[in-house]
């Protein structure tokens, strides 16, 4: 089993028994998608809700461009769209006493944006650990689709 790292504003695809890991999700959202019948998994570390008029130098950064691209990469590995399920983690508000701009609410907006895209692609969300004020490190297993979430204060849980 290998652990494949996914950086901020990055994505990766893995096959069983490998594990995809992203470390220190703050307001970013980790979108984990898997086709359990062929055990092809994908993980994206999304930073912002929508590319809009801004640069799309890196489609992995935005919810609206990252999710379709991740699905496409998984399909290239043999995954099938209508068998895919998703799990989400992240979207926290790291600095609670900060509220001068919209950017600060970016965590919840990221979660919302990811769900909208998943909904359009008809990928059901089967597990979620989002919001709150804590940073998360997640491991997504391509073997069984389990998503393990580590936080500093609340320890480890698996969804």
């Amino acid at each position, binding site marked *: 089993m290998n652990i494949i790292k996914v950086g901020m504003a990055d994505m990766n695809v893995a096959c069983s028994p490998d594990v995809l890991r992203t470390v220190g999700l703050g307001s970013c959202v980790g979108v984990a998608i898997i086709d359990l019948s062929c055990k092809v998994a994908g993980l994206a570390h999304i930073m912002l809700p929508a590319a809009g008029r801004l640069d799309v130098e890196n489609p992995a950064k935005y919810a609206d461009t990252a999710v379709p691209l991740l699905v496409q990469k998984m399909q290239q590995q043999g995954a099938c769209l209508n068998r895919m399920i998703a799990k989400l983690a992240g979207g926290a508000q790291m600095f609670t006493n900060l509220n001068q701009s919209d950017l600060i609410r970016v965590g919840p907006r990221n979660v919302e944006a990811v769900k909208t895209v998943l909904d359009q692609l008809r990928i059901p969300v089967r597990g979620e650990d989002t919001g709150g004020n804590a*940073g998360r490190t997640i491991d997504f297993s391509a073997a069984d689709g389990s998503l393990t979430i580590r936080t500093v204060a609340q320890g480890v849980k698996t969804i």
Partner: protein
Amino acid sequence: MAGRLFELDDFQLSVLREIGNIGAGHAATALSVLMQKHIEMNVPRVHVVSIQEIDEVIGGAEQLVVGVYLRVEGEIPGSMFLMLKMESANMLLQILTGSHQPVDSFSELEMSALMEVGNILAGSYLSAFSDFTKTNLHASVPAIAVDMAGALINAVLLHIGMYSDRALVVDTEFRQGSENVESHFFFVPDHGSVETIFKLLGVDFA
């Protein structure tokens, strides 16, 4: 602009390092006064990093740290981020309050003391920086959190992330002799701010 950040020449990098030097020098002095101990600082490092690799700059994305975040407002907007290792935060509190026991979580009063430290450091850094560039700069009210370093830097990089995949980070390390006070002070200019700095200082920036 995003591409050009990668093409800073040695002279431009040394200008940015010098700005870090002046700002951090003042901050180190302020910290020395506050702690009544001699605080040393390293020569600032200027990194141009892709946001995917920011972990390498902060050293361990999962490490528990105290982070104080401020927005720089004015002609050269950006973000400032003070990252204290837990040992350093504990040491600081011991010096400031006289009676603190090392822990992994802090009371509201302790959090506000640490926030004030960030405020003082950022304030002295910024006043030196604004004298040097002859601009008006001020810092927002600080925000504080104790969590994974990676998750905190995540939030700090949002402003840059909207425009670019690369960030310019001026990183200064503070140390207090043999004791375990280690902290980092990051200045991350917003998209376009580097251009403004060079323009104000009359440095060519094609």
